[in-house]
Structure formats: structure tokens, C-alpha cells
């Protein structure tokens, strides 16, 4: 009996600039949210669909938690080929704390008897990377992180995960398992506008907190969100272009002027000196690597 994959997805939200808060500053003003697809979800979805095409798994059910806007993430999965879609209605502000998302999703998956869960390692808005861990803990499942390749043989899951330097670690575990996918380098599948339009006519099943027997206020949170503040805080050095940024983020950087025209340092002169200066330039910026044994 091939297991079904429960794919956890999220409709991410960026913010307008400047951003305004609502009356009690517990959330941003709703019109300031700009909804977009969570880039990382596409890779997890791709892996699930490929596993189904390969006959390794039975079906793909996509699950999300959030307001009605979150249905869009589910429609994307349906348009790409997922079998059914489920949403747990909850406000966007509640999802600022990953423990909440983890608990809600875990409750739904437990309710549906899921043994194998796929998710993106991190969302493109919160980027905590925590939800898969909370999921695994709540389900008593093995947690496999930063996965690039997934294989299933009976009840044995084998994954490859990517670490810095592009190396791969090979891990194995039994079901139940939560597999958190890293953003692969492969281009995610393209879903047509018309396919999305057709998908939006399909049914999304809603599983409320009461149906799941869970209450938001009772979800244990070791870390509490005290308040929201606009981004005045700065670290000692501004982050450089993070190559884990989503397309939206990079676009923002470019529009704002972050990746502006570079000021070139030009080297001309005696060849040996030029070579030495260039090598030194690279070395100082730690761009050269030792060959690791």
C-alpha cells in the first residue's frame, strides 16, 4: 500500500512599503499584505509529483493553514496535479509564530492519518525553517531537513540533503517522516494561468480548529511574540545579497537599488603584478577555497 504524501504549503505574504499596523499593532494592516507563492513549496510539490509519477507514493494531498487568501497556494498545487486540497482557517497574524502553524498542520495530518509529510524547509516570508520540526515532533515522525533527493522503499525513507559547499549527506529513516525540501537548483514546474483559473473552481476542504479538537490559545509556545516593530533594527554589517532570497526579494533589492551598478576596480599594468593583486583581492574576500580532503 503506497503511502500518501501530505504536502504542507503556505501562501507567503510580503508587505508594502511603508507598512502600517492595525489599531492594536497586533498585525499589519490587511491592505499592506502582498500575497505571493512560497518559492520553496514548488520544489516540495515537484518532488511529490515526481514520486507519484514514479509509482512510489499513492497520492498527493496539499494542506495549508491561513485565511482565505491561502487557498491560492492550494490551487497552485491542484493545477500542477495534486489530488486534493485542505485548509485550516486561521488568521495570518497567528502564523507569525511557527509553533502555531506546526501544531495546526500536525493536527490535520494526524486527523487524516498521514505517515509521510513533505514541506519546504522554510517559507519565503517567515523563513524560520521551524514548522517542519514542530510537525515532526507533534507527529512523532523523523525530521529530515534540507533535502534535495527523496527515495522511498517500502517504509524506509532515504534522502540526500545539501550542506554548505554543495556536498550531500545521505540519511535514512523509517516512516512516519517529515521531509523538508531545500530549494533545489532545478527550475520548478510552470503552471499556466488558465490551469490556475480552472483549479480555482475546484473544492478546498476546510478543517476548522474545532473539527480538529485543537484550540489556538492552548498551543504551547516556548517563545512568545511580544510585539511587532518596523524594521529599524540593524546588525553591525548589512547583509550582502543572500542567495537564498526569493525572486520577489531580489527584485525588491534591485528596485530599491541594492544591486546597483557596480563600481569596477580596473587593473592594468605589468602582468605579474596584476595577477598578484587580483589573487590577493580574492583571497582577502575569502573567495578562494582550500581543497578539502
Amino acid at each position: 500500500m503506497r503511502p500518501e504524501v501530505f504536502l504542507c504549503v503556505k501562501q507567503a505574504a510580503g508587505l508594502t512599503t511603508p507598512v502600517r499596523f492595525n489599531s492594536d499593532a497586533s498585525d499589519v494592516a490587511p491592505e499592506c499584505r502582498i500575497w505571493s507563492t512560497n518559492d520553496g513549496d514548488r520544489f516540495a510539490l515537484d518532488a511529490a509529483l515526481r514520486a507519484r509519477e514514479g509509482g512510489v507514493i499513492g497520492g498527493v494531498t496539499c494542506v495549508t493553514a491561513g485565511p482565505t487568501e491561502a487557498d491560492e497556494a492550494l490551487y497552485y498545487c491542484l493545477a500542477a496535479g495534486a489530488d486534493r486540497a485542505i485548509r485550516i482557517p486561521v488568521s495570518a497574524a497567528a502564523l507569525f509564530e511557527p509553533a502555531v502553524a506546526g501544531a495546526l498542520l500536525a493536527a490535520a495530518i494526524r486527523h487524516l492519518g498521514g505517515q509521510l509529510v513533505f514541506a519546504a524547509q522554510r517559507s519565503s516570508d517567515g523563513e524560520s525553517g521551524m514548522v517542519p520540526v514542530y510537525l515532526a515532533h507533534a507527529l512523532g515522525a523523523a525530521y529530515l531537513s534540507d533535502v534535495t533527493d527523496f527515495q522511498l522503499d517500502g517504509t524506509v525513507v532515504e534522502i540526500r540533503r545539501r550542506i554548505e559547499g554543495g556536498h550531500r549527506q545521505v540519511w535514512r529513516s523509517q516512516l512516519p517522516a517529515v521531509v523538508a525540501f531545500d530549494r533545489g537548483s532545478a527550475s520548478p514546474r510552470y503552471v499556466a494561468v488558465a490551469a490556475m483559473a480552472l483549479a480555482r473552481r475546484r473544492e478546498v476542504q476546510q478543517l476548522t480548529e474545532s473539527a480538529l479538537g485543537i484550540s489556538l490559545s492552548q498551543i504551547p509556545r516556548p517563545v512568545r511574540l511580544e510585539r511587532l516593530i518596523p524594521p529599524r533594527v540593524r546588525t553591525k554589517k548589512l547583509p550582502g545579497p543572500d542567495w537564498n532570497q526569493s525572486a520577489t526579494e531580489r527584485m525588491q533589492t534591485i528596485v530599491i537599488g541594492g544591486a546597483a551598478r557596480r563600481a569596477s576596480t580596473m587593473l592594468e599594468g605589468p602582468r605579474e603584478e596584476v595577477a598578484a593583486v587580483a589573487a590577493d583581492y580574492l583571497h582577502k574576500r575569502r573567495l578562494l577555497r582550500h581543497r578539502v580532503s
Partner: protein
Amino acid sequence: MIGIWILAEHDGGNFALCSFELLGEARRLAQKLAGTVAALVLAGDDELPIDVLGHYGADRVYLIDDPRLHHYDPTVAVASITRLCRLHQPVLMLFPATTTGSDLAARLAVSQDWSLVPHCVNIQIRGDRIELVRPLAQRGIHGVFSASQSGPGIVTILPDTLGVERPERARRTMVERVTAVIPQHQDIEVCGFVAADPRTSDLGEAEIIVAAGRGVGSLDNMRLVEELATVIGGSVAGTRPVVDLGWLPHSRQVGQTGTSVRPRLYIACGISGAAQHVAGMRDAGTIVAVNTDRGAPIFDIADLGIVDDVTKVLPLLTQCCRALCRK
């Protein structure tokens, strides 16, 4: 004793820069709280310059040494660190937001119900509370979180965001060897490690790329490009004309109709910088361009430009890099 711990990552021979960054931050906090700084090292038969950790601020080093930890083993690492925490009760733990650091921090926090704020950008001590700030909603706003008191507060911090303080070579550190805890039941079995080979791995993942354009001149000259790549640990790539000429396979093509790449370093050899090529590599961290034509558009986007013949300069550059890499 208020303990502020950090996880020191290493590559088997040297500590990563983020370890020193974290030590600096831990030092700053320790001064405020009148505490001590300790570094956790997970090692597996590695020869590491532990005393350097002391120079950068560690009062103590807990060295968990076990062959199983030569590569990251989540269950062993979590079990070992959990026991250490129970014994010494640190107040705060700083982990780098690397794959290992994030994974370890998350497992620790969730399994023990400890607080974790990932990608923390600010740590404030307010009386007896610790306030941790992290970005939310695509870094549009920040959330201020308070850690619970039932165990250490854990944060992960992105590498390359803090600076590194000046080391004090005179400072001594106490090293304590700790036996690893091997749990009875390991739900994850670590069964292999596949080293990345820049020569064959996906261009989209490459951190260093040396790319050849028509200016390289001939198929024979490609070996100059390959040598440089080998020495600095990079992957070889090329422009569309080079692939059309058969000097490289299509899998190595960078550009509009090839692969888009985002390496930390991109060395463009004999590439003019046509829009179709630049479209595939404009997001690179640092771009170095070598071209005989001073007016080539590639120099508009390069950080460092060398106006010279690729075939003459490349061997010298390779030589210098080789010397520097040996250090």
C-alpha cells in the same frame, strides 16, 4: 554562572568564520550579564586549533569528540548537547544559521521545549528578560520575542552579518573533553557522505565559477581555464558561442538559454558581456572579468576588471592563487 554558549562550526581543519562572529557577540552579551562564554565543538577525530577559539573570546570549550561526529549526526549531536545543557544550564545559546546550526538548534529546541528564535538580528537584555528580534513577512517588519525561562534560549544568526572582533592572542581557554551520548534508538541513520565535485556538479549550485568566452581563443586554451578552476575549487562554465564551438557541453552554458547561476565568485575569461550571457550570471556575488577590450560591456558589471589577454594572464593568476590557497 551565566553561561552563553556558541556552536563553533569547522570544516575538519579550520573553524568557520561564523564561529568567531558568534564568539564576538557572545562576549558582548557576557560582559553585560557578567557571564562566561563557552564554545561547543562537535568533532570526529579532527585536528582543530581549539586555542584560537579562546583568542576570539571563549572562556571554555566543550569538545564532543566521537568518530560518529566527523559528519553531522543529528541524534548523537542532540543527545550530547542536551545532556551538557542539563549539566551546565546555559542561559543563552548562539548557533550559526547554517544547515547544521539551524537543524541542530531546531531539534534541540523542539525536543526539549526550549525557546528558539531563528535568524535573530538583535539580542536585548531587559532586566531579567531576554528579548530576541527576528524579521517577519519577507523582512518587512520585525517581531520581538521573549524567551521562556525553562531552559536556555536558543538563537540562530546568519553568517556574514556580524563582524569579527580583534582576537586577543594572550587569552587562554579551558578545554573540556566530553563523551558523546549515543542514544539507543536513533530515528535517523547517517549512512553516507557525497563530496561535491565542482567539475561535475550542477552549475546552479556552484559557489565558484570560472567561465570561458570566445576570447579564450581555442579549445587548447581551455585547459588554462580548467586549471584555474581546479586550483580555486571552482566549476568550469562557458558562453553560448563557446558551447556552439564545441569547447564545452551544453550543460556548462551560462546565459539566457543556458543555466542561471548565483556563485559567490564568477570569473569571466574572454567574455564580452552580451546581454544574453549577463542575464544568466548578473546575480553573482563577486564578478571578476578578464578581457583585452577595455570597452567590453562585461566591465560594467564586474567588481574587478583585468584588461589583458586571457591566455597570458590566466596562468599567472592560477599560480598566485595556488600559492595563497596553500596557506
